[in-house]
């Protein structure tokens, strides 16, 4: 009985996917317009996109930019967030700046950054970096702030230097929260990737999507939506898996990421 239940709860997201595709299929059949193909037609268009060498290179280039932007963003943001969480001065130094930057859509900086850096990889990666940084900084900040003082005191009493305390006490203690931030950052990186490519129409997954929209190739539009959505769900699941291994000792707070734009 327990086994059956476990299988059902494992398969639930898959069932949900199938259910949503089913709703789409029925909705499309009822509406029956050109601009809204059925789910089946959209799925059938996927192999022709993935099979096409140029689109595949485009999509892989997008993923590469995303990986670089995400990686650099995480490496820069975690130390900054941790320092903000442990030192009041650093926190009040950076907080207002971050508050001002937060509501600005990072992809909207694209036209300005493009003027300086051109429409190449650098501009897009920079925008992804900016998008990823904020949630990671924020969550690392929250995580480091919640570290129990007593542990730090014991660490100091046992002769750990400030830097050692940061790495051996604050970092592990804040890890669950940091990983929550990284998960949000991952979804965000994907979103920023799509939007930046949509604004600088040169290459990438977002470019294929919006070019197809402009040219009225509706099957391609929906197929790309499925591909990008699948990437989001797949990356998220992979990250969740990793997170489960790294911080098995902590119970998950938000088990579903909160996506930002």
């Amino acid at each position: 009985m327990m086994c059956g239940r476990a299988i059902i709860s494992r398969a639930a997201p898959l069932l949900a996917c199938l259910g949503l595709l089913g709703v789409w299929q029925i909705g499309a059949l009822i509406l029956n317009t050109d601009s809204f193909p059925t789910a089946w037609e959209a799925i059938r268009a996927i192999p022709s996109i993935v099979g096409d060498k140029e689109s595949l290179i485009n999509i892989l280039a997008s993923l590469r930019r995303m990986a670089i932007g995400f990686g650099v963003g995480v490496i820069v943001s975690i130390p900054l967030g941790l320092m903000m969480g442990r030192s009041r001065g650093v926190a009040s130094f950076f907080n207002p700046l971050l508050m001002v930057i937060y509501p600005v859509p990072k992809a909207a900086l694209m036209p300005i950054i493009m003027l300086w850096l051109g429409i190449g990889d650098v501009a897009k990666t920079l925008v992804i970096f900016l998008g990823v940084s904020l949630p990671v900084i924020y969550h690392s900040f929250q995580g480091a702030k919640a570290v129990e003082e007593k542990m730090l005191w014991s660490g100091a009493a046992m002769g750990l230097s400030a830097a050692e305390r940061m790495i051996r006490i604050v970092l592990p203690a804040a890890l669950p929260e940091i990983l929550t931030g990284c998960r949000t950052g991952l979804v965000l990186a994907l979103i920023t990737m799509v939007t930046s490519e949509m604004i600088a129409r040169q290459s990438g997954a977002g470019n294929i999507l919006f070019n197809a929209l402009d040219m009225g190739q509706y099957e391609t539009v929906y197929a790309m939506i499925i591909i990008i959505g699948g990437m989001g769900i797949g990356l998220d699941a992979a990250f969740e898996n990793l997170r489960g291994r790294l911080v098995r000792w902590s119970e998950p707070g938000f088990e579903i990421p909160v996506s930002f734009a």
Partner: protein
Amino acid sequence: MNLRAVTIDVLLGIVPIAVLIALWQALVSFGYAPATLLPPPGPVFMRLVQQLFTDTFQEEILATLFRLFAGFSIAVIFGVTIGLLAAASPAFNAVVRPIVRVLAPLPKVALYPALLLLLGFNHQSKIMLVAADALFPILLSTYYGASMVEQKLIWSAMAAGTPRGQILLKVVLPAAVPSILTGCRIGLVISCIVVFLAEMITSTDGLGHVLVTAARTFQAIDMFVPLITISLLGLILNGLLEGLRSYLLRGFPEV
């Protein structure tokens, strides 16, 4: 926290912003960036103030605000309702949870072309996109807030003879308010970002459209103005929400 500490905090906080603006000015003054690509901060802020008093720019702001609030309100209504129901009913939860799990990490911007094709180029598609993006943080934090409500409170209400439906409204909802407001805050920031993006993609008015028009005509000054405006709008709305929070939570212990 005394007044002096607060003053020091504020002063410290101004420093990086001031440094950023000074750096911006320096880049232009020392000729590292031509003024056509990076206009100096002075003229940009002058232009912002000047624009804020023109009718056309005010109309753009109003268009953006309308979409933002419409989408955000839809997200709040659905997010809070679904979140509460999911916390209250295991059957509903079993259905909703996997769907949310699939939809939450989906990049909603990728859905925008579909929304455009289905709902047209008017307000609806943008409002829907804002609602879709702001929905999940609000839904999730409502759910977590509602499922963390102390069981004793519910038992007391049941013992006092409150009907089940009433318990949800009178006990669970108020107890979940702090968490809901946290979700709303994230949702609000997201709404600001998304409404701007949607307007950049296809629009005939709104702040995002102002930016795109300026970019197409290489009016660097006019590109900065809508960006600063949306940042200010975000700050103001955040401040208002903060005010609402401290009013609603006046009885709660400090969180």
